């Protein structure tokens, strides 16, 4: 099976950012995204999703390393200063490189 290397960018953030993150990611070159509803906790606070303002999402974007870097840096500069956001990147392989 022939696979092709891509980057997986995972952004965990306040649910309030979902629309904006999707818009920005597509704008910066992502071909798609997947979002899961999550809860968690970190340096800023416990986000236990007990009411609207307290919900978190986990957004996954599979894309080229360059695109991943662009999105990550954009999120870092625009959202991280004021919002609860965590991000990480991982190396993944896909079968249909053109798709991502």
């Amino acid at each position, binding site marked *: 099976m022939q696979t092709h290397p891509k980057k997986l960018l995972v952004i965990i953030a*306040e649910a*309030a950012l979902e629309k*904006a993150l999707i818009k920005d990611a597509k704008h910066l070159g992502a071909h798609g995204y997947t979002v899961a509803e999550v809860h968690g906790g970190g340096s800023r*606070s416990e986000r*236990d*999703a*007990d*009411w*609207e*303002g307290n*919900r978190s999402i986990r957004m996954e974007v599979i894309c080229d390393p360059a695109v991943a870097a662009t999105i990550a840096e954009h999120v870092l500069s*625009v*959202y991280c*200063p*004021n*919002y609860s956001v965590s991000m990480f990147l991982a190396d993944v392989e896909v079968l249909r490189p053109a798709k991502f």
Partner: protein
Amino acid sequence: MDPVVLFFLLGAVARLAKSDLRIPEALYETLAIYLLLAIGLKGGVEIAKYSLGAVAPQALAVMAMGALLPLIAFPILRIFAKLSRADAGNIAAHYGSVSVVTFAVGIAFLARQQVEYESYFPLFVALLEVPGIVIGILLAKAGRKSSEGSPVQWGPLLHEVLLGKSVVLLMGGLVIGWIAGPQGIDPFKGLFFDLFRGVLALFLLEMGLVAAGRIADLKSRWLFMLGFGTVIPVLFAVIGILLGKALGLSVGGMTLLGLLAGSASYIAAPTATRIAIPEANPGLSIGLALGVTFPFNITLGVPLYHAIAKHLA
């Protein structure tokens, strides 16, 4: 105290006692949708009885009040609490807007006391949602160098608040109730009217859980928060009651307008301001609106404002 408030206390106690009691998110949303629609429908059915000529001027005056309140809160927050422009504007936006559930507790209280009120009040609730938020955000942004952060995108923002679920469901309910009229609404009474109090009780149970969870937010500046969160509602309530009198509302109407003025939004405002004023600390505004003012209003506020209204009437 209205029994409905006991459900709030139950939720608060459960949370403070670290009970594992949780209201599923879907239920929370369902109850909110129900309350907004039911309040709208109730108002819509009644509104037909009144002439537009009578309601319109009142409506304008009420909206003006919604725009005025943040202008009062803002300087207080800046000068006395020494808050940043962003935080002051954010909090002003919350107190300029209204809390629908606080209103629901108010009508439950009046129903229990058998006090009449202008039955088109749900219209005022819908009209008061937005102006305060807009003014609050303007205050937060006013005179900011463009260097500081990105400018507010008013298009999306207004779209968001005007088409947020609160306004859409309240207004939608009003229009449906108004078109359908008493007979038309009759088949829906079973769900939307007969269950209203019970659903409100369940929602207050959830609110108790949430509000008690916000108390952590107070630890940093609890003195200011307890003070502001209880004094401002009373001040604003008096303003609302006096406006109600000036508009020739009944004692019940004066009470409700005071309650609306003194209530702080925790649905529409937080969503809108989180995006529009990123620098603002949501813990502060939510801690105030949910952790202090909401509990204060539904327990002590409602009877207090009613007493004031009777006194000033």
